């Protein structure tokens, strides 16, 4: 299995298309960082216009690497699934289109093994992309902007997390984002098994994610308690929960606490269930599939 996984990763990372996502992500992050470096205060004034009249806001202190990383993640984690679809949607359909799938299936490897290896390779690609994002968004932002306490705007209130209480929250948030993005990879992988060229599953994955994200974000009472809680897109941004801590009676954030851990765990369980369902379906379909490409 390990040997097969190495082969699959070698194929993914030998393909020029794989690196489009890394370059695109780097470009987006650098654009945000450059903008905030030179005009971060205006951005913060705009963001905090609702509360700036009530409080004195020390913008120089707030604009630190932790906040910049949060801004970047908030802006990009909605769009990264589109980049994931580029590679995950290509895993099986791309091979069918190229004609190499039939050669792979004549090798002494079970179809289940082949599918698992391809999915794990897509997940490793997803996690590499996320790691790249973490390096650029967090490490580079810390180097450019330094560190300080982190201020998070929540509706009409502000939450202050102590500088020493931030890093583990990022580790947890990135871990959660890894599962969320792997759900998109699993969906693209399932669609890839059903197609003979990669354009179809890539476009279909992106379309599904966009439609479901819109549905998750819209406030329609009919769907709020019936459909939305079960859409995977409703749980993809639950990583933010790691930055919401419990507060003392006088409103101070409790170090090391998470406001609603059960909600995060429930979201995680839903995402993992989606992954299992998508991948199992892909395996069942592929095991029965006649390879005609």
């Amino acid at each position: 299995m390990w040997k097969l996984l190495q082969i699959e990763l070698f194929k993914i990372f030998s393909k020029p298309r794989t690196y489009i996502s890394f370059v695109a992500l780097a470009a987006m992050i650098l654009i945000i960082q450059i903008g905030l470096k030179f005009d971060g205060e205006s951005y913060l004034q705009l963001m905090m216009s609702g509360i700036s009249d009530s409080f004195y806001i020390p913008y120089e202190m707030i604009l630190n690497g932790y906040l910049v990383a949060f801004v970047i993640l908030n802006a990009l984690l909605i769009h990264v699934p589109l980049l994931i679809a580029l590679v995950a949607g290509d895993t099986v359909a791309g091979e069918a289109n190229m004609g190499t799938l039939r050669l792979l299936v004549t090798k002494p490897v079970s179809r289940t093994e082949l599918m698992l290896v391809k999915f794990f390779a897509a997940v490793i690609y997803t996690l590499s992309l996320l790691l790249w994002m973490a390096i650029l968004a967090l490490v580079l932002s810390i180097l450019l902007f330094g560190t300080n306490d982190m201020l998070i705007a929540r509706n009409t209130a502000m939450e202050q997390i102590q500088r020493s209480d931030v890093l583990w929250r990022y580790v947890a948030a990135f871990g959660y984002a890894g599962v969320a993005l792997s759900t998109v990879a699993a969906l693209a992988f399932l669609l890839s098994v059903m197609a003979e060229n990669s354009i179809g599953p890539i476009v279909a994955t992106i379309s599904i994610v966009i439609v479901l994200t819109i549905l998750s974000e819209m406030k329609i009472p009919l769907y709020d308690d019936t459909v939305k809680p079960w859409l995977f897109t409703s749980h993809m941004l639950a990583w933010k929960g790691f930055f919401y801590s419990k507060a003392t009676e006088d409103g101070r954030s409790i170090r090391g606490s998470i406001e609603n851990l059960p909600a995060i765990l429930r979201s995680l369980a839903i995402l993992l269930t989606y992954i299992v369902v998508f991948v199992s379906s892909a395996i069942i379909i592929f095991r029965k599939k006649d390879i005609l490409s």
Partner: protein
Amino acid sequence: MSSVIQVTGLSKYFKDMKAVDDLSFSVKKGEVYGFLGQNGAGKSTTIRMLLSLITPSRGTIELFGMNLFTHRKQILRQLGAVIESPDLYTYLTGYQNLSLFARMSGMNVEKKTLLGQLERVGLAERSESKVKTYSQGMKQRLGIAVALVHDPGLIILDEPTNGLDPQGIADIRNLILDLGRNRGKTVLISSHLLSEIELVADRVLIIDKGKKMMEGSISELLDPSRSIVELQTLNPDNAAQIIAMTHWQSFLQKRRHDQFIFKMNKQDIPQLTAQLAEKGVQILRVQPRHSLEDYFLSLTSPNQHVEAFAN
């Protein structure tokens, strides 16, 4: 001699279409077995079933004495294949492609072995070039190297000479003869180049519309009594009268202008020409046609066969 391939009652339906219909055949160890049929006859579907790419609707396939669908991995370890066009990873080099498939076949990769394999198919000098820079013939040869790299006992080649120049075709022919005769490999080969099959195969299976038409050795199939003989004369009307009055009429298949086409034993040609010459018929040309292609066409499209000669 034991059978390496044993196919019994094999059928495949795609919805209402019957692609392969109750096909049975066997291939013995060390045989080179030709698989013939027109486009759409069911050759590729059969080959894909032998490679476990397609699940049969009915019937059984045993390779090396084991059921293909219960011992798939064991069987595929001993099997190498080229399936239609050899599509490989174009963004990788020839060496990387070969190495990758060798590892997937469970082989411990030694660079020397792989380079030797590439040299054998004439690609040693281009081993580090990306496959996207290869010609169709080079891709075909790399596909054959991939099929042979793990030294399989059974080799299935579906149109292996596609896209090759005459020298490439001759090289593949020699390779197949070497595999079968000197290295004891069992080879199943399908090709539309019937003359090539005739040169390399010990036995041949002909299928049409998914059904078995004929199976046998080349010598059995090329029975001299079934030769097609073309005769061209300077005075065809005179010849036609003489033929009509003699027993040669029963062998005549068609007349077109100055040409007469007979289906007869080619050993009787001297008797025919002598009889015509005796009656003053001037014979311009006599040509017996006696190839696997003639036989194949007479089985799969008997009308086209005669027309083809006449034209």
